[in-house]
């Protein structure tokens, strides 16, 4: 798989698995899970510094920045302005102009507000950001995001943290067919086979957090996800057989020893 890197904008990643940094039982387990996942890009959120408890260890102490690229998100932002502000702050902390752009439209589903997302993408691309927008599995919205200059499109497989798997495989396939930028399935993965399905549909990568962080054994699940993504990618490249309604024997029909002797 080393000859099959993921290229987004001007950066090359060895792994097609992108993982989060939230919800882990501890920073140490997170670091082990990151290592097991093989991911070389992780997402982080931008939040107010805790001024009352300065003893809390810093997340950054547990991310090997020589090996792992940090992608700040705009999670929790409900308007284009909030997301733009969070993106600018994230750039200032991380000194990179990459952003996983989220503009959330609804608290219960955490589905994106695509109108605001398009607006924020337009503004941030103009400011020189490399924008990776989290979006619905809607081919039209993905096309418009690409037209606004998004460096990748990141359609959801299912709601964030739901673990429901890829709910609309057909749309992911359509998005992949038309997109000229990488397609990263972001959110909804529950287990390794979900990641494999995403990759078999032609996704260029998968982004996940909860499925690993809240697994009973996050490190083992991170390994499973790494293998799931690799398996799906290989299967996609190998080219699956067409589906057919009836059987097609794998063993030859000629030369079969039958009760009636040799038949021609």
């Amino acid at each position, binding site marked *: 798989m080393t000859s099959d890197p993921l290229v987004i904008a001007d950066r090359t990643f060895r792994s097609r698995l992108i993982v*989060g*940094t*939230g*919800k*882990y039982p501890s920073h140490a387990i*997170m670091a082990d899970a990151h290592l097991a996942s093989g991911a070389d890009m992780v*997402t*982080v*959120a*931008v*939040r*107010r*510094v805790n*001024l009352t408890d*300065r003893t809390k260890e*810093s*997340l*950054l102490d547990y991310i090997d920045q020589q090996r792992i690229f*940090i992608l*700040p*998100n705009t*999670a929790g932002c409900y308007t284009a302005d909030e997301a733009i*502000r969070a993106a*600018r*702050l*994230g*750039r*200032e*902390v*991380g000194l990179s102009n990459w952003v996983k752009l989220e503009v959330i439209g609804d608290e219960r589903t955490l589905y994106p507000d695509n109108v605001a997302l398009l607006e924020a993408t337009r503004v941030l691309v103009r400011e020189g950001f490399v924008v990776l927008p989290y979006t619905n599995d809607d081919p039209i919205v993905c096309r418009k995001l690409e037209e606004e200059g998004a460096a990748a499109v990141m359609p959801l497989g299912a709601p*964030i*943290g739901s673990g429901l798997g890829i709910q609309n495989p057909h749309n992911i396939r359509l998005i992949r067919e038309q997109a000229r930028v990488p397609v990263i399935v972001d*959110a909804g993965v529950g287990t390794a086979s979900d990641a494999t399905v995403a990759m078999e549909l032609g996704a260029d990568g998968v*982004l*996940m*957090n*909860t499925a690993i962080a809240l697994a009973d054994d996050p490190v083992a699940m991170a390994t499973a996800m790494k293998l799931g993504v690799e398996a799906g990618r290989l299967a996609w490249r190998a080219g699956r057989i067409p589906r057919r309604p009836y059987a097609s024997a794998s063993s030859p029909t000629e030369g079969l020893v039958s009760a009636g002797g040799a038949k021609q």
Partner: protein
Amino acid sequence: MKIRLNGEPAEVPDAVTIEQLLERLGIDPRRVAVEHNLTIIKRHRQAETIVGEGDEVEIVNFVGGG
């Protein structure tokens, strides 16, 4: 003087600079971003940026997220 620091009222010395404020709070400036009245103050400007009465200062960092 009184300012709003990360959304909460805070008492700080008059004419404190952003750099001094971070130092007082024990915050490594390389790991945070600072907004002063909605304007981001880049690291090289933090020593010369003076906070005034009633100003709003936001100090953010990276936390776990997806």
